[in-house]
């Protein structure tokens, strides 16, 4: 790691500590336990990776395995935090929740299977698998958050400011990581697959140097955006959390059964008339 990366790493650790402090002071674990668990995982990961680098060295195989395994753990915890965001508001609207949770779960499974399929048989299997899985999970996170917000907008519901800010932070981190993981993944599958092997000739060294510079640049960009996201979350947690809104009073099921087909029929008539207007 260069000096800038070291500085940014320690700064990001400081940011995570502040975030965890805010989360526990505001008792956010009562409203969003998985998000708080995610922040704790971030902290544990930061210390875990630093410890591995200290004990085994930055370029060691042990540190390499430690980094990639913790990256997956991070992605898993973030996925749980996103699932919690999905459930937080929609579960009060039983009909809508019953309709969308399967779709969201199916969507997630699709991305997970795509990652497994994509990484299958790749060289540098752990790094490639982690990178691909992380990238696809990042992409799935952004897509699921977008789907969640579209559903909220469509049904006239609104996410509370805290949840909205958390979603924005996750989106920022994931979008930057998708780009970063894709670039680094391309480097791995390009000239660099024997990166950790012994087969490093003079051309290999030059390429590895080039790879190192690209990787450093992306690490710096990732850390900057990661800290920005943590800053956004800290800002959201600066005030005490509002009391949870009461569950809405639902209408009798007969209202939907009777009115929904009638409304759809009217809407269809509207379209039929517009089609008639367009006929020559």
């Amino acid at each position, binding site marked *: 790691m260069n000096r800038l990366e070291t500085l940014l790493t320690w700064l990001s650790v400081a940011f995570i500590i502040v975030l965890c402090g805010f989360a526990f002071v505001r008792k956010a674990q009562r409203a969003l336990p998985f998000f708080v668990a995610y922040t704790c995982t971030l902290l544990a990961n930061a210390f875990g990776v630093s410890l591995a680098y200290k004990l085994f060295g930055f370029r060691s195989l042990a540190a390499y395995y430690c980094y990639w395994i913790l990256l997956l753990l991070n992605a898993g915890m973030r996925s749980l935090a996103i699932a919690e965001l999905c459930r937080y508001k929609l579960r009060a609207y039983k*009909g809508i929740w019953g309709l969308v949770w399967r779709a969201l779960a199916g969507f997630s499974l699709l991305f997970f299977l795509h990652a497994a399929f994509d990484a299958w048989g790749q060289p540098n299997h752990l790094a490639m698998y982690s990178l691909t899985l992380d990238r696809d999970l990042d992409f799935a996170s952004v897509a699921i*958050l977008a789907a969640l917000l579209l559903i909220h907008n469509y049904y006239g519901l609104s996410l509370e400011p805290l949840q909205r800010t958390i979603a924005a932070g996750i989106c920022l981190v994931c979008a930057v990581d998708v780009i970063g993981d894709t670039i680094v993944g391309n480097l791995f599958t390009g000239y660099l697959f024997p990166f950790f092997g012994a087969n490093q000739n003079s051309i290999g060294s030059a390429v590895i140097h080039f790879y190192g510079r690209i990787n450093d640049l992306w690490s710096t960009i990732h850390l900057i955006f990661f800290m920005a996201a943590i800053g956004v979350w800290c800002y959201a947690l600066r005030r005490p959390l509002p009391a949870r809104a009461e569950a809405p009073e*639902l209408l009798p099921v007969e209202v939907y059964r009777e009115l929904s087909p009638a409304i759809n029929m009217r809407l269809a008539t509207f379209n039929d008339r517009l089609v008639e*207007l367009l006929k020559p």
Partner: protein
Amino acid sequence: MNELTIVILLAIGVSGILLWLLIPRHKSSMPAASSFPANVNNALPTAKHYGYFPQIRQALSVADSIYLRENAPPHVARQALRERRAVARRFLEGLHEDFSNLARLGRMIAALSPEVSREQETERLILSLKFQVLYSLVWLRLSAGSLPLDQLEHLTGLVGRLATRMDAAMAQVSALSVSQLSGDVGG
């Protein structure tokens, strides 16, 4: 375009949509679904453009156009026709609003229902998307002057019946809500 470019463009595109969705908006004229049961009568939309139908009918009538062409100077007749098209476009926008209100009513009822049918929701989504496309086409043809104004008269009749149905729907929802509340209190 290689995979890298596609992924980067996709990531930027999806993030852009997401950030746009995350921007808090002003509250619409419709109340939020969560406040719906408290004020059922005020919450539901009405087809407010229906009130102007007689005037619109008159303004768009073929007889008016013929009268203008026969009796007014050519430049006055042309200007009058242009203005009539502008009125027709605004009326079409009004119809769009009425359609949106009706669709929103459907979505609000769905949001507040303990059970929702996937078929009904999919159908409404497709109908709304179809309406957007058709509306754009009609608007374009109307602006280009290739759509006879008198054809819009068909729509005025439709919206008139729509207003009546929506009034009935409002009454039905009110009655059901009241009976449920009475049942809850009594039970």
